[in-house]
């Protein structure tokens, strides 16, 4: 085998390998769907974020409009401070509500935005004032049990 054939094969090999990497990045990892567009940062306080994680999606009407960029604990208000990177293409009114929701029963948690009616739009650095915390299953169950207990007491009287 002479050298030019080796060159050709190595070339094919490198092209195949880089093609596989490109396939992994574009088709499997879906790069480029959100990393190139411009974003603006909006913050929100939640009493409880449940299992929300950094890079969780932010959806409005089911469409992904941004990602959670940072989660930290506020030592003064004892609340969670969530930073959200929203796509600059999407604008939301100032009285938008941010809720922490769960996709499916066992799915991951995301932030749902519900647009309000204000004429003024949110801009970079603003805070979303209306928030709703994650539903904690234990609280829900204990509430349900208390209600049941209260109901069963009344006919006994």
């Amino acid at each position, binding site marked *: 085998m002479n*050298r030019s054939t080796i060159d050709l094969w*190595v070339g094919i090999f*490198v092209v195949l*390998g880089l093609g*596989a*990497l490109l396939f992994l990045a574009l088709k*499997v990892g879906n790069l480029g769907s959100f990393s190139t567009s411009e974003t603006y940062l909006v913050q929100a306080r939640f009493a409880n974020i449940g299992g929300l*994680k*950094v*890079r969780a999606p932010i959806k409005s009407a089911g469409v992904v409009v941004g990602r959670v960029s940072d989660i930290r604990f506020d030592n003064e208000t004892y609340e969670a401070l969530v930073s959200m990177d929203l796509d600059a293409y999407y604008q939301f009114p100032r009285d938008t509500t941010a809720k922490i929701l769960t996709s499916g029963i066992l799915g991951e948690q995301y932030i749902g935005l519900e647009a309000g009616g204000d004429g003024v739009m949110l801009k970079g650095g603003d805070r979303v004032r209306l928030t709703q915390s994650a539903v904690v299953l234990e609280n829900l169950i204990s509430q349900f049990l208390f209600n049941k207990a209260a109901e069963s007491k009344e006919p006994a009287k």
Partner: protein
Amino acid sequence: MQQLEHLREHARGRLERIGNVVTSQVWRLGFASRFLFYLVVHSGTALRRFRLTLKEIYFAGVLSLIIILVSGLFVGMVLALQGYETLQRFGASESLGVLVALSLVRELGPVVAGLLFASRAGSAITAEIGLMKATEQISAMEMMAVDPIARVVAPRFWGGVISMPLLAALFSAMGIFGGYLVGVQLIGVDAGAFWSQMQAAVDVRNDILNGVIKSVVFGIAVTWISVFEGYDAVPTAEGVSRATTRTVVTSSLAILALDFALTALMFTGGNNQ
């Protein structure tokens, strides 16, 4: 009294032997590190005369293509079959794409490709360099004032280091294709859900880039072990065969141990970042 003396002598002999083994292993590790350092410093020739490295990429990479592609395809197909069996019990068979892609990109791609690479290419490198040493080609080069590490070892090292990440990426891509074949074409999972759930769950930086870093580390480890074992082989037929066996065993263990360490570094604590 004499018996006690004998026993003590015996115990000391055994301790000495253990100490000898440990010392010689540490000595070998130190020599191997110095060898790697020398190799990297003197790899100018391998990079300037890139033809030399190109030929080694051909031997280590191109000739490993068939085994990597076929194994990747079958590993992906088995993953899809087994994963579907479990996932459908929870009514989550649409997550098959996530399961196949994440296990391949994070773990199986780099690790299995690394193991195959060690046994297919690593052993060949060791045998080749060991035989060159046994037939005194290495000493002949030294005699002609040609540095055998720069001329023989460095191109093989870089050839392996360049080939390994490409092979691991091909393995993962082929595996995902195999998973698609079995999951979507054979079992009938919805194609849209298969790809879209995969794209939603696989992160380019956290999963794919970390997988590539793993394969680069494995590539360096396997090729380093291979060239060192070949260069350090006892120059006899038996010595070369032993060195080849040691290459495969040590590389496999190194890959698995490094994989644990890298996974612990990359994927734990990544939950909250």
